[in-house]
């Protein structure tokens, strides 16, 4: 299983969260938004200036900054 960093995702990719940093403070909040290990999502769009990244997960759309997703490793599904 090969994983890449969240920031390396491209538009249209489907991916699954593989590894995350320890869930406290900032990362806990991301967990609470549904970004827990095993969650599948799709990259909808990357903002024109390269950041943030809009993803579709659990039936809703969320934008995340690459920097704040540092440490999240994802597995590409397609």
């Amino acid at each position, binding site marked *: 299983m090969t994983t890449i960093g969240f920031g390396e995702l491209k538009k249209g990719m489907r991916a699954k969260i593989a*590894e*995350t*940093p*320890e*869930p406290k*403070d*900032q990362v*806990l*909040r*991301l*967990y*609470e*938004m*549904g970004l*827990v*290990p*095993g*969650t599948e999502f799709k990259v*909808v*769009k990357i*903002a*024109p*200036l*390269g*950041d*943030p990244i*809009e993803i579709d997960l*659990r*039936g*809703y*759309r*969320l*934008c*995340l*900054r690459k920097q*704040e997703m540092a440490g999240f490793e994802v597995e590409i599904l397609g």
Partner: protein
Amino acid sequence: MKSKSSAKSAPKRVALVGNPNAGKTTLFNSLTGSKQKIANYPGVTVEQVSAFIEQDGVRAEFIDVPGLYSLDAVSEDEAVAVSVIHDKSIDLIVCVIDGSNLERNLFIYTQICALGRPIMVALTMVDRVEAKGEKLDVEKLSKFLGCKVIPLVGHKEKGIAALRTAIFAELANPTISGPVIDRTEAILPLKDRLNRMGFDLSVEELKAKIQEGEPAFEHYFDQFPELRPDFLLAKEGLERHLDPSARYHWTSKVQKEVISQIKKPRRAVTVTDKLDLILTHRVFGLGIFVLVMYLVFLCIYTFSKPAMDLIQNGFNSLGGVLGNLLQGAPVLRSLVVDGIVGGIGSVLVFLPQILVLFFCIALLEGTGYLARAAFLMDRLLGWCGLNGRAFIPLLSSFACAIPGIMAARVMPDQKSRLATILVAPLMSCSARLPVYMLLIGAFIEPQFGPFWAGFTLFAMHFLGFGLAIPVVFFINKKILKGKRLPFLLELPPYQLPKWKDIFIAMFTRGKVFVTTAGTTILVMSVIIWAAGYFPRYNIPAGTPPEVAAEIQLEHSVLGTFGKGIEPVFRPLGFDWRISTAILSAFPARETVVPSLGILFSLGKDDKKLDEKLSKKLIDAKWPDNKPLFTPWTAVGLMVFFALCAQCFSTLATVRRETNSRKWPWVMFIYMTVFAYVGALIVHLIAMLFGAS
């Protein structure tokens, strides 16, 4: 008997809780109408909106709790909202849940229900579920949640009436909630991971081991350090909080159970997807963004002008009428006309801009465009510690800092909001324009031509903006320390504007400004009036009124202070007249032109004041006959005005919006220092180049 009747009349308290974008505020507005009152929670910038409703003799206070994603609050703002939910005096918690986004919206329900409080659910956005061709089994959902679920379907008013009835029924006979998730689920992620690593432990064994604590896991950690987070979550889940994974495991199960696809979606590609294709496009999206922002700016800058002029003229004529009535009592006349009527006018004159801006914001926010604008702009503003939403308050501040500061509310994060509020008045507002025009017209354009006149005007507007960036950076790094939450921007589906919500948002903002900031502004304007009016100076009869006004101001508290403070302004190249004009402009910078009018013996109401004043300024001399103004002095004075916090209304608004006395002082001091240093630098450069 008596005690019973008083117990009956004590209002019940109902809290509306839910995720941002769940339709909570719309629901609150529909339930309560416009009878809302707004109060600040002590110590933070969060507002509590509440309203009383009566039904069948029962009075209930409805509280709109700010939107939350989770009860494990991290930021100060959220902690306040959470404290309302924990408040034992709340008789019923109404969870507002977006039916089209169940999986995430139920997350907070799993936390709230575990509190064991009276609870019910209002299910919104049911029409969106139907548009997707799905069916939501409300009864099944109610069974999973263990409480009453009221879907808002069918005719809007009918749905609201049904909800209101259900709320009062629950108040009389509440359903007490209990945890929906078995706590053992908290340890399942750890169990799974151990399994994958080849350790087969039963739930009971694992539970016992976790209760033994960390030493029991040391040998696992030595081999597999990545086990530690799962262990910590499992431990916490058993003891206090449940692991978010366990909660999402449950919500996604519920979602699958209660929602079924019964037919094809009405549209294969949703309207939102189609709109986003254009509105967040790298070329069209940015173009439309610029256009929308231009329109918003045009609305505040130009469209509110007639209403502002009407208010200004109205108060001027009111002052005239009252002035005639009070002819016999000069002190009272001046107090009423210049102090009170002028003061009320200077409060109300801000209203058109505030109403227009909040109309625009509510429209952009309600339709879902504001979130897209933030998505586009986040990179540009994010690096220095703001976020994409800061665009609206900063842009508005170029018209007027007051609506701009109030608009900082669009940012849910307290730290970004404060940073934006603190730099908003650095944006060159429209009240600075008359000063620039006067000085550029007198000293730049005649000598250097229209190009440099235009350049100076542009430079003055850019100066504050250019300084704002390092200031925000510094504020974020040095002053607003502490935990920062990730910037979470949800892009909700687009929807048509809800006019009722928009008008309620407009009027509550207007009301808040007039009743809180407005009173402070009025008091200050009376104080400043008194400082310019007293003590009365004996002016010989027959002196022309313009000269008399100048002599009076020179000998008033303000003038005496201006003269006393002259040495402070001398290094900037300003004499006592400029110093006094600057002092008199601290409450409101737009008064500087009339003040200069008085100080240069022209009176303040002259029709051709600008023209005559620029002549007077060109001719003005120091006592040693050197000209008072060089182009450099003019630039120095403009820089001073560009950077100084000369607007009491702004400070009063900051006081209200930050709910603190500290921040207006911080703003006042740093901006005054900037202004002084800026003007000093200009003066030093002038001396270096021989003051020519």
